[in-house]
Structures are given as C-alpha cells and as structure tokens.
C-alpha cells in the first residue's frame, strides 16, 4: 500500500481523497474494502518516515487541505520498488496495484515489470522443477515440490494475462 501511494505521488502531488479515488478505481469492486482512513493512515506514516511532505492549502469555504508530494527519499524508494521482483503471497492485488500505479504515473513500462517478474518466477520454477525431477518415484518430498510448482504455474498464467492487458493498453 505504501509503495503504491508513493508511486501515484510520483506523477504529481495529490490530495488524499484523489489518491483514494484512484486506488478505488484500480481495484474495482474490491476497492470497497479500502476505507478512507487507510489512505490517510498510510500518508501519515509516509510523512513521518520522511518519504512524503505535506503542504497545507488554504480554502475559502472549507477547512485547509493537505497536498502531499514525494521527497527525495520517497523518490529513491519508488525507484527501488520498481526494480523489486519479490513475490510474497497473496500477491495479486499488490502486483496489480503496482502496475496500475506505474502506468498512471508514467513511471515505467508495465509490460517490462511483468516481464521482469515472469523471469523471476520462471527461475524459481526451474529450481523447483529441477529438484522435483531429481526426486525418486513416489517420494513424498516430490509431492510438496509439485504443490509449489503448480502454484507458480498459476501465477505465471496470470502474469501472461497481465502482459496481454498492458500491451493492449499501450497500443490504445
């Protein structure tokens, strides 16, 4: 969540409510689970960590609003996040938001991020597969490895769908 918020801020400084609207749009029906508080809590934490800076903007008819922007440390963090290929579980919403944020902010090519992730998962699959093939017939360790192999295969299929989607978006 923190990284996604930072990435969205990399494009331009925003109000909290704008960030929340963009996240909700990206998540569709799943976005209902995202309450307003979460975005503000995240922004507060990021501010405390020195990754974003807030500026009060006076409004005539309503109370002041904060506009958040990235600090230099925040920019470094976004750069590091873009290069990251960790695949913690459950992963899909996080990775999906990464692609949405990256595309919205024009930070990087989402297809390149999918490709980097795919390479990482294929390396993992190769390692697991190699170990599974080295097991003798009927080994119970092979069964454990097969579970991991099947999960990675499902993740890889989903990444293919991600690549197709973002390629289409790029062409459009």
């Amino acid at each position, binding site marked *: 969540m923190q990284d996604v918020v930072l990435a969205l801020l990399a494009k331009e400084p925003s109000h909290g409510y704008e960030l929340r609207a963009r996240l909700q749009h990206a998540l569709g029906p799943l976005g209902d689970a995202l309450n307003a508080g979460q975005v503000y809590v995240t922004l507060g934490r990021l501010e405390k960590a020195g990754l974003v800076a807030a500026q009060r903007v006076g409004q005539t008819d309503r109370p002041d609003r904060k506009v958040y922007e990235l600090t230099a440390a925040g920019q470094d963090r976004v750069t590091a996040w873009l290069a990251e290929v960790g695949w913690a579980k459950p992963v899909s919403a996080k990775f999906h938001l990464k692609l949405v944020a990256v595309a919205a902010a024009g930070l990087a090519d989402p297809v390149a991020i999918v490709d980097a992730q795919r390479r990482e998962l*294929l390396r993992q699959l*190769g390692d*697991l*597969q190699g170990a599974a*093939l080295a097991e003798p017939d009927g080994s119970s360790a092979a069964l454990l490895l097969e579970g991991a192999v099947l999960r990675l*295969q499902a993740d890889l299929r989903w990444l*293919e769908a991600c690549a197709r989607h973002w390629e289409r978006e790029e062409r459009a």
Partner: protein
Amino acid sequence: MTANAVLRAAGLRKEYGRGAALVRAVDGVDLDVAAGEAVAIVGASGCGKSTLLHLLGGLERASGGELSMAGERFDTMSETRLARLRRNAIGFVFQGFHLVDELTAAENVELPALLAGVSPRAARRRAADLLERVGLADRSRHLPSALSGGQRQRVAVARALVNRPLVVLADEPTGNLDSTATTDVLRLFDGLRRNGHTLVIVTHDSRIAATSDRLITMRDGAFVDETRLGGGARRLGSLAGLGG
C-alpha cells in the same frame, strides 16, 4: 556461443497471405543455438512458434533471412539436399506425436533410420536402446493405440533421436498430456539436456520452459525477451513454503 552455433537464424521471416490479409507469422528472428544448449521458446497462441520451428527444421521455406546448420546454409538448398539434412541432422517431436498407427513402437523408432540407409539390424539395435532409454523397453511391440499419450510422446522422442541428430526440435511436447505424463516427458527432456543434446522446444507450458538453459519469449512473430535459467536451487525451502 557464436563460434559453436549448431543452428543459426538471421533476420528470419515468414509471411502468409498478402494485402489486408498479410500475416507476419515470423518477423525478423535472430537465433544462435549453441551445441549442447536447451532453448525454450514460449509465447501466446498464434505468436508464430510452430511456424518458426518449421522454418528452423527446413519443413517450410522462409520468406526472408538466412538459416544454417553447423555452418552450412540451408535456406538456399535444393529440396533433395534439404530432405537429406532434415533426415540426418534434425529430430522432430510434434505435439500430436505423428506416429504411424500400423507400426509397433519399435518399428516407428526404426523407420527414420531405415530411410536414412542404416542396416535393418543396426536400426533394430538403435531402436531397442532408445526405447530402453525412454523407459519403454517393455512396450516395444505395442501399437501406438495401445500406449498412453505420455508413452506415445516418449516413443516420438526416441524416434527423433534415432538418426543421432545435431539438434532436436520439439513443438509442444507436453501439449496433450496430463500432469503425470508431463512429468515423465519433462524428465526425459531434462535427461537429454544433461546428456548434451541440443534442443529447441516451443511451448506454452511453463514447466518444460523452466527446465531449459535459455528461455525466449515471442510476441507477434518476434523475440521480445530472453532469460538464462538454471544454476539455482538455493531457495527451495522458501519456494516450497517452508519460510526462511
């Protein structure tokens, strides 16, 4: 890698149709396959994998570009010489097995050797050795109809090897197989790779792709990504969910 390239393609193209119906099935592919290397080419349905494999194996003529096998150009070869090259230097494994239904497993494996002029005795010996290697020694007299899909595919692999080809080309070798049969075929290809065979496999099965040395991703007829695999097995515990 360039010095000992067994199979090389440069600027390879294949177009079908013309005008509005023009399809660039293979669109400018450069590929060097080193001796003993296992290359997997993956990509969505229709991206041109089978077409590329047919060009690499001399089964179809390219619209443009150059092809060579062990340093010898074959895109410009006569049909007769190309047919000989296909028979002696290339082993094919197809998705649909392409076994002759009327011949036993052993006879299917022998056939390309006999066509290449190997003596019947030598052909029979080679077939027996290969069927042993693919774990089907006890099925050699069965007809394909009496074999499972995975077993048929292993016969097809044995047949592809019978003329000791420089390179084995495989199109979706696990395409029609269930998980267990896929594992058998994976194990077989993994063994071939370890024994120094040169392999080019096109597939959408990430499992077989992940056992290669080099993985190439194809989109719309062109290569868009390349990764070297292997040498891993460090983080198995965490990959299998044991934490750490």
